[in-house]
């Protein structure tokens, strides 16, 4: 029997050595290529290999795929695949009653049960009655399918995730082809491994097809996405591509100075493969050297780029101030994670906004942009550079762990449709003054070493307006401080208005920024279906704000600001617009659920109506 569904959310959970991230990624690729809309949420521990079978060692990957437009990886899974007792214990609470639970019963040994803290076996003690449980001896079935291969039992066991994947492919009518192709490409030089993974996948699929366990399988039709060519993309991938695109559009080489840090390192890994684009990557000795080298490269006329996460941004702070002072183009990516200090490195939070806004000595304004979806990371990479180059300023680019590792279908842009962001270097020696500003943008000239006749000195000491000589003159410092402030504030005239989704006036505006976009938009869609006068707006430019922000805020009786922090954007909004915005703040290392946002809005609406 085939049942048609609009949307399905699956969570794969297992030990961090069980290959759950790979399993999830393979399912994602397959769903994406099939044409579903998708959204994903990897959730993994910071430990590379926490003790096998332990609760902290559980790694999960949630994918939501749909035949209609979706914005989030789903509030709760419809199906949970649990590869061991620890995965069951840490995830089953998220599975709604009646949800399908597929477990690898072979992993429920007394040792594994003890590691997960189960006093009795949940598969037999009746504690899973609320769910539809499918117990499958995945390990044993998989090992049997690999009979005759020259592998140890342990090696064979490592392929059981593909057996599980095969089951899921059958259950949701998916083709195995993309994964089979991937296996060939990945294990081409290791025929035994290629054969083992192929067999495991096919055996799982055949198991689904031939056994009587599953009475139904499910069909989720392709989504009706706007015409175009698509690829599945994570935020970190889109960021890296966007940076390469910006360099091409600016017709300048990209220099990337970086120090490894979760969850930003993948940007370094990816950019280091783009050498044929002239991209120079530099793994520095520390975060400070990473940004220092980027500033040096920008001084030389390249696009100097650096990235980190909160702890690394803290170290880069002094150098960011230098970039503000010498007014050189620079982009600083902050892939935010849960803090403070080392915090929870792989978990989601958006709590570095005030750090990049204000975390510098002196009055050191810096533009801030924040993409809202994985795909948008591409657009805002180009936008960050447009601002940096046009205004000769460092720009902060805020991504986060959710955007960085989550994915969605991305409509690939035509290169011809991308904006031109090229700017010229100064060459005329007669009119050159190091701090003579463009009257419109207030940008100072970019005069790079190697240009005859423009030899000049810059640095962190305050400079005299126009001439750039060292100056301790009180009036000059005041003037230069105002100019630096005005230069950034004026960018408001050069960015798009804040878009409102829903009625332009109403009861509640749900205002957010960054990766909360999906949950906020979905909640407001639901409220619209219920006829509520609620709208959504997502700020992508956080400094300066779009010019119409104040008007938008003033058009709603209430402003609700959900943030995965203690209310950092709310501080800025209240400060700037004197609007009594209400916070919805959760810092659990996880993204908001749609239902949480919806409930908060309903609470506000109820409060108001009962007044």
């Amino acid at each position, binding site marked *: 029997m085939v049942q048609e569904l609009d949307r399905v959310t699956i969570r794969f959970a297992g030990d961090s050595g069980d290959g759950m991230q790979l399993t999830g990624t393979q399912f994602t690729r397959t769903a*994406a*290529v099939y*044409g579903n809309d998708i959204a994903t949420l990897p959730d993994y521990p910071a430990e590379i290999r926490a003790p096998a079978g332990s609760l902290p060692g559980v790694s999960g990957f949630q994918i939501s795929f749909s035949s209609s437009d979706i914005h989030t990886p789903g509030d709760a899974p419809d199906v949970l695949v649990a590869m061991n007792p620890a995965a069951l214990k840490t995830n089953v609470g998220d599975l709604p009653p009646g949800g399908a639970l597929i477990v690898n019963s072979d992993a429920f040994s007394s040792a594994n049960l003890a590691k997960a803290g189960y006093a009795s076996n949940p598969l037999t003690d009746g504690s899973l009655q609320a769910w539809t449980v499918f117990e499958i001896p995945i390990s044993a079935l998989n090992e049997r399918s690999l009979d005759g291969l020259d592998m140890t039992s342990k090696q064979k066991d490592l392929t059981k995730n593909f057996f599980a994947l095969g089951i899921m492919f059958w259950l949701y009518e998916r083709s195995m082809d*993309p994964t089979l192709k991937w296996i060939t490409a990945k294990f081409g030089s290791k025929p035994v491994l290629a054969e083992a993974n192929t067999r495991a996948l096919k055996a799982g699929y055949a198991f689904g097809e031939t056994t009587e366990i599953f009475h139904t399988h499910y069909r989720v039709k*392709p989504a009706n*996405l706007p*015409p*175009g*060519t*698509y*690829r*599945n993309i994570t935020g970190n991938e889109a960021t890296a*591509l966007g940076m*390469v*695109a910006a360099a*091409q559009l600016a017709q300048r080489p990209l*220099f990337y*100075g970086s120090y490894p840090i979760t969850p930003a390192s993948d940007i370094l890994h990816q950019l280091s493969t*783009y*050498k*044929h*684009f*002239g991209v*120079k990557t*530099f793994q*520095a*000795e520390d975060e*400070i*050297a*990473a*940004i*220092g*080298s*980027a*500033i*040096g*490269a920008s*001084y*030389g*006329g*390249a696009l*100097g780029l650096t990235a980190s996460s909160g702890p690394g941004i803290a170290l880069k702070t*002094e150098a960011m101030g*230098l970039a503000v002072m*010498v007014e050189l183009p620079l982009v600083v990516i902050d892939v935010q994670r849960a803090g403070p200090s080392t915090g929870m490195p792989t978990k989601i939070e958006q709590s570095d906004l005030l750090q990049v806004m204000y975390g510098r000595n002196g009055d050191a304004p810096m533009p801030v942009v924040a993409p809202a979806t994985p795909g948008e990371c591409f657009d805002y990479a180009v936008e960050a550079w447009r601002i940096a180059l046009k205004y000769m300023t460092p720009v902060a680019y805020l991504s986060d762990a959710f955007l960085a590792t989550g994915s969605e279908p991305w409509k*690939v*842009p035509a*290169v011809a449709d991308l904006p031109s962001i090229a700017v010229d270097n100064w060459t005329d020696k007669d009119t050159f003054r190091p701090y003579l500003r463009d009257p419109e943008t207030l940008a100072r000239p970019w005069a790079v*070493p*190697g*240009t*005859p*006749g423009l*030899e*000049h*000195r*810059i*640095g*962190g000491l305050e400079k005299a307006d126009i001439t750039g000589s*060292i100056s301790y003159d009180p009036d000059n410092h005041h003037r230069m401080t105002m100019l630096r402030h005005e230069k950034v504030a004026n960018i408001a005239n050069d960015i798009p208005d804040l878009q409102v989704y829903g009625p332009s006036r109403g009861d509640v505006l749900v205002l957010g920024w960054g990766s909360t976009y999906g949950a906020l938009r979905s909640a407001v869609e639901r409220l619209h279906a219920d006829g509520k006068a609620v709208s959504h707006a997502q700020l992508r430019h956080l400094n300066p704000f779009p010019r119409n922000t104040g008007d938008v805020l003033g058009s709603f009786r209430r402003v609700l600001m959900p943030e995965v922090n203690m209310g950092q954007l709310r501080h800025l909004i209240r400060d700037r617009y004197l609007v009594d915005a209400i916070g919805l703040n959760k810092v659990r290392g996880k993204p908001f659920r749609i239902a949480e946002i919806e409930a908060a809005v309903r609470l506000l609406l109820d409060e108001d109506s009962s007044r």
Partner: protein
Amino acid sequence: MTDTLIPLTKKDFTSDQEVRWCPGCGDYSILAQTQKTMPDFGVPRENIVFISGIGCSGRLPYYMNTYGFHTIHGRAPTLATGLKAARPELMVWVITGDGDALSIGGNHVIHSMRRNVDIRLIMFNNRIYGLTKGQASPTSEFGKKTKSTPSGTVDTPIMPLSVALTAEATFVARSVDTQTEHLQETLFAAGNHRGSAFVEVLQNCNIFNDGAWRSFTDKDVRDDRMLVLKHGQPMVFGKEHDKGIRLRGLQPEVVELGDDVSMADVLVHDETDQALAYLLSRMFYPDFPVPVGVLHRTSRPTHDQLVTAQIDDAIAKSGKGDLSKLLFSGETWTVS
């Protein structure tokens, strides 16, 4: 025709900024010798960049009529690394001090040296923090009483040249602010080196640490207390050229040339020998004469050369990157 064909002079390298070091500071001499040496390289002014950190030495770029960047404390080598990687054709000098290079910026010095970044790092060593008015520095002698160490510092001083050598610098030298000709020669050698050059200049801070080096640099004693190194020459010193350095086991010793010790017993300087250079870097007054000159010079590919070669290789292998192809790469599907 460009104006670079007219030979440049010291004046061409002197900026219009008023020099603001304390009267009598050793930095004046280092600046003058630097300005004097610059024309000898035949490099157009616009292709020369001076990058500095924080401290009295950090002001030097303002006084050079070249490109200059006065950065933040300890970080000059990092900016130099990025600039040089982006613009390999530039001649980049890093100006630093003992605090800037060996305290706050120690990490960057080590890593720029091991990478063989093509920079000439000139470290002014006055064994004190001057700009912040007299605190102990990482080269201050053990037990030294300063404003921040009224009972004497409890820290063993660092040996700058030993650090540079173990960090794999490809050029390591020492000179003295007051020995102008030797300083010019040393700067010239550093300037002509390709790769990471580390030059320690013993410099006098006449306000906070006056006479720090006088015990062996003063005219009347220096011949007996300093060892001027010359590649391929025996290590002989003394007013009468009557003393030498001999190796006993793995230890150097000072010997008097005479009936018992002949010239053949004296160590011959070999710049290419890193182990010998390390041994020299450990020699210091009063136990030994202080070696000056080029301790070590060797050659290996520079950081920017290696980075550029990888880019060239990648382009040779896969062709120049095509943005459209890149964006549409991976698994794509089309919705019509």
